[in-house]
């Protein structure tokens, strides 16, 4: 019986602890953000401490970063009104000790497989691209797209990433004899453009240059786009096809050709072969996961 009051006290204490209010530090914001405290709305100010009775209002295109209990950081980017008492989960931080992490780290390192070229295409795809120097731009184009060989017919996106919170981007296509003035320009809202959008502007057997920039800005980082003749591409595929083992299953052959085409920067064509491998042998986890990984890398939806 003596245990009962102790248990009641313990549960009350635990309840009190869980009900304890969290404090939120308004770490940074951009755009139009306001805070509501005691039904009074005011403009957000960096460094302001808020308790969980308050709320933050985020306008369209704005963002706010909060730090809960001086440790857990989270950012709100979607427009709306957010009562802070709803962010209890965001205040939690993991508390694993360094020593425990050391044991996990050693174990992970010792049991980590180095893999083989076929099972880890990114680790072995060693013809990625060149280093570029110059002004740092708001748009970053993956070095994997440094040179793209294309034989036509298959659609494939040229993609990029943006450091700026921009809504519109410009795509520029240059011919090899005039890299100062683009012969094709397009404004897009996404961070990619399908090759099909400008394929008809190009002629097979020619080299072109392309880049992308935040609308109104410039980007000197030009990438190479080789529009290859069908006959040239057929010869390359034939050479690759003949390099296979004597007994090669259709899915195995498709996967190998895809891998070697990707290495040779025939990305649109490699995609078709990765797709074929995964379709012919749908039970093969490697083919499926490689296809997914390829689609993710090159922003294929």
């Amino acid at each position, binding site marked *: 019986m003596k245990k009962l009051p102790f248990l009641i006290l313990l549960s009350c204490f635990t309840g009190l602890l869980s009900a304890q209010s969290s404090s939120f530090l308004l770490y940074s914001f951009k755009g139009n953000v306001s805070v509501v405290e005691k039904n009074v709305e005011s403009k957000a*100010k960096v460094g302001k401490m808020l308790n969980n009775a308050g709320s933050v209002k985020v306008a369209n295109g704005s963002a706010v*970063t909060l730090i809960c209990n001086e*440790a857990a950081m989270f950012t709100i980017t979607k427009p709306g009104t957010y009562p802070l008492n709803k962010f209890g989960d965001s205040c939690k931080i*993991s508390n694993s000790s*360094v020593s425990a*992490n050391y044991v996990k780290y050693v174990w992970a390192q010792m049991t980590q497989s180095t893999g083989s070229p076929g099972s880890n295409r990114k680790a072995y795809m060693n013809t990625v691209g060149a280093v570029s120097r110059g002004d740092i731009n708001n748009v970053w184009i993956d070095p994997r797209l440094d040179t793209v060989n294309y034989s036509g017919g298959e659609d494939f996106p040229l993609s990029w990433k943006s450091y700026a919170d921009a809504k519109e981007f410009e795509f520029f296509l240059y011919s090899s004899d005039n890299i100062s003035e683009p012969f094709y320009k397009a404004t897009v809202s996404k961070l990619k453009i399908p090759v099909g959008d400008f394929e008809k502007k190009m002629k097979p057997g020619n080299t072109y240059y392309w880049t992308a920039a935040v609308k109104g800005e410039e980007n000197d980082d030009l990438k190479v786009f080789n529009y290859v003749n069908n006959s040239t591409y057929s010869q390359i595929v034939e050479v690759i096809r003949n390099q296979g083992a004597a007994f090669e299953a259709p899915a195995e052959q498709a996967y190998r050709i895809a891998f070697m085409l990707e290495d040779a920067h025939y990305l649109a064509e490699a995609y078709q072969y990765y797709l074929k491998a995964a379709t012919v042998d749908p039970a093969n986890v490697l083919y499926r996961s490689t296809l997914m990984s390829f689609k993710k890398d090159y922003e294929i939806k």
Partner: protein
Amino acid sequence: MKKPLHKHIGQGVRNARNHFTKYLYERDTIFATIWVFLFIVILGSIPLNLGIMNPIKLGLKDFDFNDISYSELGKGNNNPIDSHIVIINISDSDRGKLSFIIEKTASMNPKVIGLDALFFGPKDALTDSLLRQSFRKHKNLVAAAKYEEDSNRSLVLSMNHFLNDAARSGYVNFPNKALETTRYFFPVKKTGDTIFPFFATSILQLYDEDCYHKLVKKGDTKVMINYSRNLTPIRKQYQVLDVEQLLADQIDSSAIQGKIALLGYINESPDFIEDKKFTPMNEKFAGKSIPDMNGIVVHANILSMALEKNYIKKLPSWGSWLFAFLVCWLHMSFFIRYYLENHIWFHLVAKIAQVLSAILFVGLGIHLFDEYRLKVDMKISLIAIIMAVDVIYFYEAWATWMHKKYNYRTVFKPHHH
């Protein structure tokens, strides 16, 4: 009759202990251990720098096992934001704008302002005059400078055109080369009767007398920096204020009032390496990497360490050597037992023991560093364990020769394998 389980376990423990201790007090074990350390000392004393031929040595020159705890084990990840310090990003502001930033910051009543910027010579007369006024007006403003040796080999503070206008100053030199990891700083530098304070030391003098005296007591000696916080796109452990927001009144005064306001250059993008230093918090703990932390954040870490009084204690070198000797002695006893009694397994067991010991002792070092802020140099212990196996062969030959010549008593028999 079948033995009960606890007797099986007891027997197993006795056998295992026997593996380590059977030869522990043998003269040969102790002498072989001494030979290991003689070799370490002799090889370490060779005046030729053979390291140039050794890529591993070159690669690990600036390596510290404890760096793993930051880069891979999440040390410091959960440390709360330091509420004593606020960093104001001055970006690439010119002298005129800096003057406005100082005035705006001072209007929010920080306890101390530290300006981590060097000013080489005069520039535009108007902006120079504005900045000079700011330096003269605010007695709680600490200016940055660098110490250099003059022609008399005395230290002088330089590289700040406004040094004579500032009420206080502190040097921002670190005792490492530009491409080495920033691990240490000198709280003060003494030259003759003059004492120059470090940038953080000067700031502490105005902010917290007690912490200041504790730091100054360490004198003109290298103090190891206990990095606890970082600024990355995913870790914000110092409040950073954008200068445009500061000037546009978008900062709550409580963010600065009564705090240490550090004015310096910040860029969290890993692509910008201007004013960045290599620190133990670098994502790569070994091999080629890029600098990871802005200088002002290094100063902030030093201030956090001093304010929280969590200095790193270093085990003296004699302690590290003694620890290494005991570890090597234990291993030697274990190795000799296999060498003499199960030689067929000797190399396999020795290699496994070396790997396991390396993992164990590195882990022990990391645990002591993380839990007790005690830095133990485990490198000597690891070198001793690695050398122990090879020294056994040398020792066997030496003991056998001594046995023949001087009837030296040894457990090693001539050509026993």
